């Protein structure tokens, strides 16, 4: 290991002399922590609706007002007929049309019920589904209020109170932030060191090292260690940003955040290196890595829950390192889980790390 300190000196110097890298190391976490949590919410609100009131009665107006008052919806327009409302829907200005029938008030008082039709643009299934369910809830609540006000129904015998543990306000930010950290890390610590190595292969400077007595492990460590240190910095920096900007702090132990991330960093950098060992130039390496990153991100539980996937897919995600780190980080941040409770995430990640690093070393060839 004699050569390692010299190689490390070289790597650190090169890293910081390239202005782009340090800038990205600072900017990307800021962008991720600052901008993304504000944007990437799967909360549904401000949905535009159009209401067609065919009755123009007191009761129908009250319903319209109730809809308007809701924080989920935005009354874009009241329309005289379906044709105009449908135009708005097709244009993309509204996603829901509420049609109140023209005997609304009469039917409410006199007959078994009045009809309200909700037309939903269900292209975005989740938005459509949730929006529909909120609209239905509001309308049903209105019916209930009318019932109570007019003495027609007694109080319900059973009240149901939901209590959300770990995240009482169902705030989306603590849910996203741990996952965003993992994503930042895989982009910077998985992608970049591998590109660095392939870049040297492409430029030919790697020959100069291959011809020296520097061992494989020394070379690999010299490439990885700077990025590991950057990774650890990013973990700390991101946590700081999350705290300062959003007031989000881990419910669990901070040392666990670092521990899990260290194993994660170790794993993804080894994966990246393995890919670069099988690539001849930067373009190839970039495409392959990108492919893996996209698949990992999509199936990690970041975008949609693993529990919602078909069973064979859930098994397949066992091969996805992001799955473990994201689950672990969310649990640490939100539930304050202990280390032993998270062993089922930690162990697979460690195994993954060992396998990936061994493969990276073996596939790196000084002599072919």
């Amino acid at each position, binding site marked *: 290991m*004699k*050569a390692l*300190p*010299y*190689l490390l*000196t*070289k790597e650190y*110097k*090169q890293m910081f*002399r*390239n202005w782009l890298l340090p800038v990205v190391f600072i900017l990307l976490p800021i962008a991720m922590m600052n901008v993304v949590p504000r944007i990437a919410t799967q909360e549904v609100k401000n949905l535009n609706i159009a209401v067609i009131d065919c009755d123009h009665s007191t009761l129908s107006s009250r319903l319209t007002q109730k809809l308007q008052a809701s924080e989920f919806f935005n009354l874009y327009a009241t329309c005289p007929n379906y044709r105009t409302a449908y135009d708005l829907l097709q244009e993309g200005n509204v996603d829901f049309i509420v049609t109140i029938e023209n005997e609304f008030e009469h039917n409410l008082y006199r007959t078994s019920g009045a009809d309200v039709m909700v037309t939903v643009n269900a292209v975005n299934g989740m938005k459509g589904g949730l929006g529909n369910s909120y609209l239905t809830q509001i309308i049903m609540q209105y019916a209930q209020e009318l019932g109570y006000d007019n003495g027609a129904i007694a109080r319900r015998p059973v009240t149901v109170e939901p209590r959300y543990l770990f995240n009482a306000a169902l705030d989306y930010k603590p849910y996203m932030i741990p996952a965003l950290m993992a994503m930042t890390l895989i982009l910077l610590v998985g992608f970049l060191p591998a590109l660095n190595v392939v870049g040297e292969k492409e*430029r*030919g*400077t790697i*020959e*100069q090292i*291959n*011809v*020296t*007595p*520097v*061992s494989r492990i020394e070379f690999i460590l010299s490439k990885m260690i700077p990025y590991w240190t950057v990774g650890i910095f990013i973990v700390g920096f991101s946590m700081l940003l999350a705290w300062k900007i959003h007031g989000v702090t881990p419910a669990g132990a901070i040392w666990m955040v670092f521990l899990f991330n260290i194993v994660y960093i170790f794993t993804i950098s080894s994966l990246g290196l393995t890919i670069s060992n099988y690539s001849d130039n930067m373009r190839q390496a970039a495409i392959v890595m990108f492919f893996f990153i996209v698949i990992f991100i999509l199936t990690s539980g970041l975008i949609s829950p693993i529990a919602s996937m078909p069973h064979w897919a859930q098994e397949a995600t066992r091969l996805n390192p992001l799955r473990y780190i994201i689950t672990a980080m969310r649990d640490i941040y939100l539930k304050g889980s202990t280390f032993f409770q998270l062993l089922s995430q930690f162990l697979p990640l460690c195994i993954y790390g060992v396998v990936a690093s061994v493969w990276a070393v073996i596939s790196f060839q*000084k*002599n*072919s």
Partner: protein
Amino acid sequence: MTDEIVIKAEGLTKKFGSFTATDHVTFEVRKGEIFGFLGANGAGKTTAMRMLCGLSQPSEGKATVAGYDVATEYEQVKRHIGYMSQKFSLYDDLTVEENLVLFGGIYGMPRNKVRDKIAELLQELGFEAERKTMVKSLPLGWKQKLAFSLAIFHEPSIVFLDEPTGGVDPVTRRQFWELIYKAADNGITVFVTTHYMDEAEYCDRVSIMVDGRIDALGSPAQLKQQFHGNSMYDVFYALARTAKRGD
């Protein structure tokens, strides 16, 4: 020049699939020699050299460099050689001094020795002012000299040069060869590949590769006589005409 043999190749062969890049090449190089490894582009010189440097496994045959087998003891080989590649693999984004310190350290030279040698080297080359200059801002000729100096910085017994003088004017090339002579005088064996035939004249002995085989081996004078030529160009031309590969 002594009679000690430092490089010995016997039937050295490299195949890539059905393509034989290096075809049963046999030769010896003595200590302190300047050995020119000539041939047209595509003749197989770089492939052969890579095997000798321990970068590539031979498909058949064997070779020893500094007494170590290139197929099984390549890491040992690497401790005893220096190398300068076609792309002058210096790190562009490090300074002259930083490059030298790096490679000195890699070969295990003690720090004060490195310091002294750097001072000595910079003075010899007239580079003192460039100590802290980024390599990428150096002109090509200087980079070449620096790359060569780097290759012999750790005082190896053999240095391999792969097309070291590409792209510079004849005067600069001549200056470069002065450095080579100096190294050879100090006992370093120089193994150099080139396709500049005038440089062949500077070598003690040369071999000429055609289609992966060595078709000529000897001192420039011997070869000129053998092939009835006035210059190495003539010798080369006589051989290259029969070539099936390369340009």
